[in-house]
């Protein structure tokens, strides 16, 4: 007998929380929304910092698929009603393989911004429902499209702190007064550092 999908979901959410808390030396705080209408498993913020938080949806699999002899893939499929799809730099997905042999998450895990995921995960819209499917190579030498989103479990806290810091910096960029932008001939120039810091 294996654990149920409900047990699996709960275990993986709590594993994710553990790695964020311990990996950030306790700086990361996680909160679970009272209702899940916006498909967020956690609201994540850095202790003492208000106003900027990352929402995260956690997805997992308890088996890996072999596409060839020595190549294992993490396959994740799910549907989202089109009117509930969230594309935001503050909304991220976390994907992981729960290894039942060692009773923990295996490396690598994947932290993917929602906008990137919705573009890369073979999206198909049918009858008002988006279907996404991800097949991420788990092998160390992989160079697939999900490679850049890999995070080792022990690094999750540190990486989330960096994401939060980057979002806070971008979110806090000073904007000119409304009237200035509408003035004829005005050109708005942004800093290249902002682009370089994107995930």
């Amino acid at each position: 007998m294996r654990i149920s999908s409900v047990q699996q979901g709960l275990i993986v959410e709590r594993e994710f929380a553990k790695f964020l808390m311990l990996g950030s030396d306790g700086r990361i705080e996680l909160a679970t929304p009272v209702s899940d209408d916006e498909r967020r498993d956690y609201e994540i913020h850095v202790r003492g910092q208000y106003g900027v938080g990352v929402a995260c949806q956690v997805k997992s699999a308890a088996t890996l698929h072999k596409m060839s002899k020595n190549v294992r893939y993490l396959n994740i499929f799910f549907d989202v009603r089109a009117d509930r799809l969230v594309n935001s730099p503050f909304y991220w997905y976390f994907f992981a393989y729960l290894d039942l042999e060692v009773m923990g998450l295996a490396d690598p895990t994947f932290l993917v911004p929602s906008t990137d995921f919705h573009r890369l995960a073979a999206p198909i819209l049918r009858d008002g429902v988006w279907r996404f499917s991800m097949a991420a190579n788990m092998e160390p030498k992989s160079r697939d499209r999900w490679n850049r989103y890999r995070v080792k479990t022990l690094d999750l806290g540190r990486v989330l702190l960096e994401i939060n810091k980057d979002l806070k910096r971008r979110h806090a960029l000073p904007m000119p007064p409304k009237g200035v932008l509408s003035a004829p001939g005005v050109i708005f120039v942004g800093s290249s550092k902002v682009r370089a810091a994107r995930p």
Partner: protein
Amino acid sequence: MTERRPASKISVVQQGVIAQNEFAKLVMIGSGGKIELAAPLTDEERRDFEIHIHGQYGSALAMQVKSALETGTLGGYAQYLRIHFDVRASRLVSDPRFWYFCAFLNPATMRFADPTFLIPSEEFHRHANPSRKGDLWHFTLEASMEAESHDRWTPYRVKQLELGKKVMGITRELVRIGSTSQAASELLEIPGMIWARRV
């Protein structure tokens, strides 16, 4: 042998939550999903979990989870798990259905280190250096983490991947004891019954 590592900076509350979640994960997966855990809404009786086997009601195991983020020595080389806590005398529960789970939560690996300890409350209260001051009982567990140890706590060692099976065994034993004692109490209600015992 457990290597000594610097303790994490997570708060006591975070540590408690992580240790409880880690215990729940190991028990759920290790029992093949057969064990159900429930967290009491109030902790007035010092229970972190009520545990029962899926579909079996009437006899639940209560569990208190205690953890440490570092190990230490007692003067020699051997590493010890040292856990200290106080209990108000009026809230001390010594019952075959109440157990303690004690473990070293290793900040470096972000999971428990082997061995962990599952100890009946009566045994714990008798041998964990109990001392009473006023209304408080003080307890200190000092359990060797070394593989070749033969200290008092050795019989209660459990490898983390075997926790699920161990808890299943304890819960089944409690169900058996419970059903036996219930049958005996029904005998006493028979009119004219005389209870005899061997001298």
